């Protein structure tokens, strides 16, 4: 029996001002699973996430979520689909003028006609799940980075979405907060029966929580596999990434003319 695929990325290409960012990406995310997209900064992984969410349109190829062609939807249909998906941003993106409680209640107030009692129960339930119920009266500015991200996580899952996308959920967290977020993401995914796509460059944490990983470099997928396969992978890029080696398929130097030319020790110079 074929696997039930929720997100199908078919040969997606994308360019910013004519410079290609993604080149023919193919990816499949089975329902109920957690998939990580890994790669160095600037490799195009956040762009891919935005294309999946319909915030950017691919220049070629397409994205299908539960059978809907995301890249072809008009804004009304896109909004209809987005009610069933959510995104956790790198820094949480909490609304700074609303309290923790109101932040989590925001999607409920905007998307549903629930009464105040129902909203209160749902908000406190989700805040309890991320351990932040006691902070429901605080403003986002009063929270630490890790706490803000937990509140954002509660907000992201408050409507029990089909698909949750995480954009660098581990960036800038201390080890304890990082482990907490990692475990919460996994726990919530399984408890809600959701499907998750995690964009990250944190190898250790990602390997410990996801079901499958894709590695992107310079806009193409250079490796994929389950965490076990990745740990054993002989592929040079994956090795470099997993072991954090400075030089390798991902060069240390930004592309440049030969050094000798720039310091005028060889012909072909001119002004730098």
């Amino acid at each position: 029996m074929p696997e039930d695929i929720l997100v199908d990325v078919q040969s997606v290409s994308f360019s910013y001002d004519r410079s290609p960012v993604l080149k023919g990406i193919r990816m499949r995310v089975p329902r109920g699973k957690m998939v990580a997209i890994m790669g160095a900064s600037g490799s195009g992984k956040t762009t891919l996430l935005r294309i999946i969410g319909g915030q950017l349109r691919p220049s070629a190829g397409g994205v299908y979520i539960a059978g809907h062609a995301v890249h072809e939807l008009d804004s009304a249909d896109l909004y209809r689909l987005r009610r069933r998906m959510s995104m956790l941003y790198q820094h949480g993106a909490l609304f700074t003028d609303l309290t923790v409680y109101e932040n989590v209640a925001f999607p409920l107030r905007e998307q549903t006609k629930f009464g105040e009692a129902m909203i209160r129960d749902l908000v406190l339930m989700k805040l309890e799940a991320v351990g932040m119920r006691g902070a429901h009266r605080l403003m986002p500015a009063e929270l630490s980075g890790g706490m803000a991200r937990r509140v954002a996580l509660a907000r992201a899952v408050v409507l029990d979405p089909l698909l949750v996308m995480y954009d660098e959920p581990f960036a800038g967290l201390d080890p304890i907060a990082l482990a907490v977020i990692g475990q919460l993401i996994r726990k919530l995914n399984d408890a809600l029966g959701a499907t998750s796509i995690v964009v990250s460059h944190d190898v250790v944490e990602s390997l410990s929580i996801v079901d499958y990983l894709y590695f992107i470099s310079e806009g193409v997928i250079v490796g994929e596999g389950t965490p076990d396969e990745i740990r054993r992978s002989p592929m040079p890029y994956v090795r470099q990434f997993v072991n954090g080696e400075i030089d390798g398929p991902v060069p240390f130097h930004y592309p440049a003319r030969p050094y000798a030319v720039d310091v005028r020790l060889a012909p072909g110079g001119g002004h730098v």
Partner: protein
Amino acid sequence: MFDRIRRGLETLGHRFIGGIWRVGSMARFFTLVLASSGTSFHRFRLVMREVYFSGVLSLIIIIVSGLFVGMVLGLQGFETLQKYGATESIGVLVALSLVRELGPVVAALLFASRAGSAITAEIGLMKVTEQLSAMDMMAVSPMARVIAPRFWAGVISMPLLAALFAAMGVFGGYIVAVVLIGVDNGAFWSQMQAAVDFRYDVLNGVVKSFVFGIAITVIATFEGYDAPPTAEGVSRATTRTVVSSALTILALDLVLTSLMLRGES
């Protein structure tokens, strides 16, 4: 030499085209704001909240400035009118200057620097911290939820603030002319009442401040929404809001005044 002139012309042309492009984007943005205004009327509380932030919080600066401008008008006006023995007309001078020109224009300039800059900075920072993008991903249109309420709040607040500015100015003029200098109280008010026409003076002033309100809030929201998501981008956008609003207000004032005077004659 030739090369330098050519480069200069190219830069000039580039900037000119860039400017026109920007005006075009702003017009498109304005249309989008109007098209997304349903939520603002449907949930008027969102607008009222913004009226508090841009209107109510601007009250102090408007009241104090209005009072000072009126007092200075009273002093300067008295000085000049005295030469013609027409000091009783001081009320007319103060009221007409305020209702026709200074009220709408100065209140708009103050509003642009107090509330316009705050709107730009707030929207710009919401963009930097991905709040607008997050809202969009929650299937909530930032245009309808964030931009349109701020726009309508500005449009509602501006005429009210201008009227308050003019009223405070008249009061300031009264304090200087009648209370301090001793111009006849009855003459002050009755001449003012006789000379200030509701339709030509007061209504035209309201129309002006209404137009200025639209201009300032469109500029402020557009600059914030369009700001590059960096610290420098937001700071530049905030500056641009104040500068372009001031220039736009003064240019629009010239156009509106000439239209209104033609209508009067």
